[in-house]
């Protein structure tokens, strides 16, 4: 090889070497470039750029570091790097939807991000540094971000007691309780109501086999003009308590046979006073008088009727008791009389009061129900069932237990099965891989599963025993929220310490008050010490608020105090004795510690004070914006026409000092009255007295209110 050749070779080698050197350098550079281009670093840099476009750049970048930021709370298992990209979370100036994500500030909530981290509420993978891994479900992490719509579920994970800020969660928990989900499922913290489905021990005396068949096939009775069965009501947004079971023809026959022979307590027809029958049975006014009485007694406070106006059918009335549009074609007339006389004799846990009926009223109202609230076509679609056979009854009894009927309905001799449905106490923490999606095409995540299962249980599991409910969207989301909040026992001791337990409410009045309270079922509408319904005012401190004589008069002849509310308190035909038992107990036992009768000095209420109070009421504070006196004024608060006979001086003073201390959440704002002003206003209000007679309201009421049919009789 000549030198020239050697030179050419080494020349080529040099070139190859150069190329390889460049490649080597290039490969070396990949790693730093990759690091530079990391997703979170890009967000960090663009935050700096964004901050520079804002007027308060310096403040926004005060604690900026180019590294990963994290919130580390060892006791709570929190390692959240979310603030690496979500850098503006703590910057109030970045609030508002005009600020692009991920830089927007967190809305103000009672918890600080530094003390709680992010994943405690939002879920997702806190330690991840990539957008997809942090937010979504991955193979290694199946707890994706909780959609904002259901975020209240996270509040419920620690707050077992209801919060005013989480109406959706509260509604969901209420639905779980009302629909008696805990009859089949284990749901911690959800109250199991005393009244489940009706006791069916004597259901054969109440309804016919044909009606049972129809009810089991389609437990909703109102049908719209196109013949479609619709959810129990158009305007009301309530879920029917009885869900639809997917039953076959033989099952319907068997169950209806079994139930129709349940006659543990036979009915003896009630003998009306012959004079009443003589006077009324031929009277053409009988039915219309019965209807009038039905309205006057405020049955519509709890029961609704379908009313067709201008071609549109609506349910009008309350939803505490069942809808009654076709009840005359449903129940046995003898049973109806026995029921109205003593509902608690048939169903011990019923929420219906025992009214003091006169024979005349009872006859008129039952005749009205039996003739007017009927539908001759109600049972036309039901096949001829004939007398139940032994075989059908046996099969029916077996089905009653297999289908889980016994979880809600009791029948003498049959016990509900324990743990009939799956335990849902940790449903909200389930991974998608633990759920059964069957052949359904829904996205494989927990939220989609829960919603599909609630809407149509068979869509994810054709063999599901769970019946079908009909939800509106808001209720479906509310129940989903409540279920997602159930994440089982807290994972760490620190989290366990954060749990806010549910307040246990209890009110067990004994003695003669307890007896009357049970007879009239006061708690169906009123709350006492946290127990009871919320249709009517909370009576926990009624003894502090109202004067004893006023309570007696009101019970004997209820009338509305709040002009915006339609009176819904039924006429119980209460005896003097019952009224004074209730009033005595309230004045002694239902007292608020802040309203101290000894602190008021009635002698101080001079006429000068009264004049000053009137001045304050009318000019300085303009209370007439919300309260009515003598027909003029606003109708937000109760009218004060009769305040002097109604309210106690101690209550007025305590109320003016701090209304929310007496009734949490009440609308009247707390003012800064001086002690002198409080005394004067009290003195003035105590001079307002009116005779007990029906008031006239100057205001026309809209006819669409839910108890319109009852409104006429209220005033």
């Amino acid at each position, binding site marked *: 090889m000549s030198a020239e050749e050697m030179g050419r070779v080494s020349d080529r080698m040099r070139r*190859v070497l150069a*190329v*390889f050197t460049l*490649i080597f350098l*290039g*490969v070396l550079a*990949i790693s730093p*470039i*990759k690091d530079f*281009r990391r*997703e979170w670093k890009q967000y960090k840099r663009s935050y700096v750029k964004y901050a520079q476009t804002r*007027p*308060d750049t310096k403040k926004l970048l005060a604690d900026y570091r180019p590294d990963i930021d994290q919130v580390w709370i060892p006791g709570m298992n929190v390692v959240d790097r979310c603030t690496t990209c979500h850098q503006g979370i703590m910057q109030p*100036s970045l*609030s*508002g*939807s005009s600020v692009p*994500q991920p830089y927007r500030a967190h*809305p*103000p*909530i009672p918890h600080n991000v530094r003390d709680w981290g992010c994943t405690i509420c939002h879920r997702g993978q806190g330690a991840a540094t990539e*957008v*997809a891994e942090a*937010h*979504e479900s991955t193979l290694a992490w199946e707890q*994706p971000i909780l*959609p*904002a*719509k259901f*975020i209240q579920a996270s509040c419920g994970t620690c707050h077992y007691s209801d919060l005013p*800020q989480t*109406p959706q969660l509260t509604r969901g928990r209420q639905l779980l309780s009302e629909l008696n989900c805990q009859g089949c499922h284990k749901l911690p913290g959800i109250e199991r109501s005393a009244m489940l489905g009706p006791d069916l021990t004597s259901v054969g005396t109440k309804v016919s086999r044909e009606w049972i068949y129809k009810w089991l096939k389609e437990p909703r009775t109102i049908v719209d003009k196109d013949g479609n069965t619709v959810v129990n009501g158009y305007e009301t947004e309530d879920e029917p308590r009885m869900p639809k079971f997917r039953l076959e023809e033989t099952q319907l026959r068997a169950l209806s046979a079994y139930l129709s022979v349940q006659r543990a307590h036979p009915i003896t027809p009630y003998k009306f006073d012959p004079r009443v029958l003589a006077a009324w049975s031929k009277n053409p006014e009988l039915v219309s008088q019965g209807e009038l009485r039905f309205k006057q007694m405020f049955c519509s406070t709890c029961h609704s009727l379908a009313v067709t106006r201008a071609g549109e059918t609506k349910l009008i009335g309350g939803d505490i008791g069942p809808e009654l549009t076709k009840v005359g074609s449903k129940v046995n007339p003898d049973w109806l009389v026995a029921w109205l006389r003593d509902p608690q004799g048939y169903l011990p846990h019923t929420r219906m009061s025992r009214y003091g009926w006169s024979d005349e009223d009872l006859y008129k109202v039952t005749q009205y129900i039996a003739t007017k609230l009927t539908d001759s076509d109600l049972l036309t679609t039901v096949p001829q069932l004939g007398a139940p056979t032994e075989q059908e009854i046996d099969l029916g009894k077996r089905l009653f237990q297999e289908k889980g009927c016994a979880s809600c309905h009791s029948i003498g001799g049959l016990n509900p099965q324990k743990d009939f449905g799956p335990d849902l106490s940790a449903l909200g923490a389930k991974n998608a891989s633990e759920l059964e999606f069957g052949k359904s095409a829904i*996205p494989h*995540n927990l*939220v*989609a599963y829960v919603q599909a299962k609630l809407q149509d249980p068979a869509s994810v599991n054709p063999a599901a025993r769970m019946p079908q409910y009909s939800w509106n969207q808001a209720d479906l989301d509310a129940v989903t929220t409540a279920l997602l909040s159930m994440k089982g026992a807290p994972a760490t001791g620190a989290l366990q310490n954060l749990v806010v337990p549910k307040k246990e409410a209890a009110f067990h009045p004994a003695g003669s008050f307890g007896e009357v309270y049970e007879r009239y079922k006061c708690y169906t509408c009123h709350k006492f010490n946290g127990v009871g319904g919320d249709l009517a005012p909370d009576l926990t401190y009624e003894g502090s608020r109202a004067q004893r004589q006023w309570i007696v008069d009101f019970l004997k002849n209820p009338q509305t105090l*709040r002009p*915006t509310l339609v009176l819904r308190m039924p006429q119980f035909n209460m005896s003097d004795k019952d009224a004074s038992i209730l009033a005595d107990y309230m004045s002694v036992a239902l007292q608020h510690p802040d309203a101290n009768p000894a602190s008021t000095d009635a002698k101080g209420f001079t006429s000068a004070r009264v004049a000053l109070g009137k001045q304050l009421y009318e*000019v*300085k*504070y*303009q209370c007439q*914006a*919300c309260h009515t006196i003598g027909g003029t004024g*606003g*109708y*937000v608060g109760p009218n004060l026409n009769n305040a002097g006979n109604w309210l106690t001086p101690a209550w007025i003073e305590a109320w003016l000092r701090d209304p*929310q201390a007496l009734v949490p*959440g009440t*609308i009247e*704002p*707390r*003012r*800064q009255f001086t002690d002198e002003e409080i005394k004067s206003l009290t003195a003035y209000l105590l001079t307002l007295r009116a005779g007990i007679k029906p008031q006239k309201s100057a*205001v*026309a*009421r*809209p006819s*669409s*209110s839910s108890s319109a049919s009852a409104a006429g009789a209220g005033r």
Partner: protein
Amino acid sequence: MKRQFIRALPILLILPALQGCRKSQAPIAATVQAASYDSEADWSDSQKLVPLGYQETQGKRVFYQYCVWCHADASPAGPSNRSNLTPVPTLLNDGSVLNAQSDEYLQNIITLGGSAMGKSAMMPPYGKTLTPDEIRSVIAFTRAIAQPPYQPPARPGSQYSPK
């Protein structure tokens, strides 16, 4: 042949290296995107839904508990107290009146009441009943449902910015 291989080598080396640079960019599911927290039907057009954020939703709750009685044409109980009052209270969605008022002004009138701001004494003060955050949330709700729509001031207000 050999030369061709040497030339191809860098490409063969670089390709796998580049492979490592590619990001797995999975689309973020719609559920992950912060969907609206709640919504409110537009007061002048019930078909249109206004999406609400967290703070606006809290404001909606407070509004329907305390304010709806006088600042809307219908209340949960049916009629509204608005027509009873003189001067007639502003409807909460009336942007033609409220858009011109700053957040600070609204915060003050809710906290201190009408008489403190030279307006009707029929508007009571809520400063001792609601927290400042709750009042702020009501203002956020007001802005969300305003008709005509509310435009926030271009720059956050500063005492130094030219008037």
